[in-house]
């Protein structure tokens, strides 16, 4: 009797599972920086298609995403940096062709503690002095960077050395990717960096714009002087290209073969059309509208390859980049 009741209960419970229909699946994986944007787009897309098309998004990292992409396992790769030479090789060998689509800007913001009243603006040479490899163990106080600053300890915070943010910042500031001092507090979780800077008057750190916007009460952004005057990071200054050199584009890479599937094509077009609005919602910065139009054209024409030559490019306007000849 007990067994009968138990079995009936089990069947009833399992029957609560919704019946899945034979839907089409779009698979996306890659960077956790791009993830919030892709999540937003996928959410709206699925709502628009009323569940006929399913989208899944993973966060295996830009490197992990490209690995799966070049093996043909996923349709779209989220990337916080351009595809590198090594990955281009792998894709070439397995015959995977890709369309490179920048979809947003991530403005790297340099932040200090609100009680820091001596930093009015930071120039690239200032930052380079603080962050270059030779500064390790030597540049330990603020007045060593600029003599008018106080003689208090310089506490540095930054993302881990495996992240695209680190790569881009070092390339933009020090001149060579990954070239940095090693004695700073590093963390994968930018929230931890926020905490660190917010609790220390002498702290300075850099990470993505979204984390600054959400924590404006706890942090103070430093205007960056890229050679043309001090510019505060904001949606406007990033979009019109005056916040340099710390605006980096982030991408999705779409497999050409996957574009043959009508649902993937629809998804990518939906992405490019709705990116400006959705990107703002998740606190990233939209590209100028022309960039999305050019992207749409590339999708229609099937223009494969990367314009970055397998490495990061710093300080060039996005429209110029997109007009370049693509390399495979």
């Amino acid at each position, binding site marked *: 009797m007990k067994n009968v009741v138990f079995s009936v209960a089990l069947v009833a419970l399992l029957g609560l599972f919704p019946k899945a229909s034979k839907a089409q699946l779009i698979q996306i994986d890659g960077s956790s920086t791009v993830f919030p944007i892709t999540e937003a787009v996928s959410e709206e897309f699925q709502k628009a298609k009323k569940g006929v098309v399913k989208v899944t998004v993973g966060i295996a*990292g*830009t490197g992990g995403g490209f690995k799966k992409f070049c093996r043909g396992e996923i349709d779209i790769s989220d990337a916080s940096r351009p595809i590198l030479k090594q990955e281009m090789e792998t894709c070439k060998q397995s015959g995977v062709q890709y369309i490179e689509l920048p979809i947003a800007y991530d403005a790297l913001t340099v932040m200090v503690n609100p009680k820091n009243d001596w930093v009015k603006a930071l120039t690239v040479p200032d930052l380079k002095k603080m962050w270059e490899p030779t500064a390790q163990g030597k540049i330990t106080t603020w007045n060593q960077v600029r003599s008018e600053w106080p003689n208090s300890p310089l506490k540095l915070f930054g993302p*881990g050395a495996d992240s*695209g943010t680190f790569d881009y910042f070092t390339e933009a500031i020090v001149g060579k*990717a*990954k070239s940095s001092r090693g004695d700073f*507090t590093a963390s994968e*979780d930018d929230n931890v960096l926020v*905490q660190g800077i917010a609790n220390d008057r002498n702290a300075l750190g850099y990470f993505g714009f979204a984390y600054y916007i959400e924590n404006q009460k706890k942090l103070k952004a430093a205007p960056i002087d890229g050679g043309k005057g001090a510019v505060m990071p904001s949606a406007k200054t990033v979009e019109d290209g005056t916040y340099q050199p710390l605006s980096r584009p982030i991408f999705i890479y779409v497999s050409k073969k996957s574009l043959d599937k009508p649902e993937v094509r629809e998804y990518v077009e939906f992405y490019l059309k709705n990116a400006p609005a959705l990107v703002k919602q998740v606190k990233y910065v939209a590209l100028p509208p022309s960039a999305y139009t050019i992207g749409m054209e590339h999708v229609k024409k099937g223009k494969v390859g990367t314009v970055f030559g397998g490495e990061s490019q710093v300080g060039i306007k996005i429209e110029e980049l997109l007009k370049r000849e693509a390399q495979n």
Partner: protein
Amino acid sequence: MGSNQADAGYLAAQAQVRTIPVGLTARKIRERLIEFAMFLCALSSVAITVGIVWVLLFESWQFFSHVSIINFLTDTEWTVLFENPRYGILPLVTGTVVTSTVALLVALPLGTVIAIYLSEYAANPVKEILKPILELLSAVPTVVFGYFALLFVTPALQSLLPELPGFNMLSAGIVIGIMIIPYVSSLSEDAMKAVPVTIREGSYAMGATRFQTAVRVLIPSAFSGIASAYVLGFSRAVGETMVVAIAAGQQPHLTLNPMEGAATITAYIVQVSMGDLPHGSIAYQSIFAAGLTLMCMTLLFNIGGYLLRKKFREIY
């Protein structure tokens, strides 16, 4: 007549005996099959090791064709992700060793004391409630423990030790220790519970206190189980990933001082494999070399532990 009956009985018994071997064979086959099935399961542990070693060796091989093993083992800086990479594993090794030592210094004494308390001092209903509650500690996701160490334990420690940096191995070690208390306490308590009651009662009959019984009689009898609990706890501490990645920091740092931040082998592996590095680059392959090093370290320790246990095991 009597002998006829005996003969008949004997013949009947013979007849029966001749039929028994058939039944025995069927049972023997079943026994053998069951034994074989269990053998396959035991073999699976070897298969897993082979798989893991294969994966580690395969990628490490390519790594070591670029980096010399001597350099790997003796260089004092691990700056693989930076522009001028240096490939000395020692900073990661010290990170692992220091955090594990702190963790074990917390877990082994506390765990054993709790085991003794639960075994001899706590009343049965109290024990059957306390044990599951403690086991719930091992159910907390490691991510939660990581943030607990970073956001709660570190500030608490900083009020005692003002010089303590935000990322340090002390908080991570303490929290890992607390996390593995159930490994030590629950498994040790089970081992002590399984000691036959005759031995326990013999000790009490001789006038021993609960503490003396526990320490002088039960622990030696349950030594094998308690040692296994220690070994499992050690393995868990060394293999812990997220707590150290979040709370101890991610900058490899060659130091034996727990009040500094450092990266452990496990934190480094997680950082790189989930990061933005291209897979197949030498930096990516370095995580396999690091993993291999970790496995060799634990192997040495486990062999030592096994030999020690063999020496001190008591059979009753």
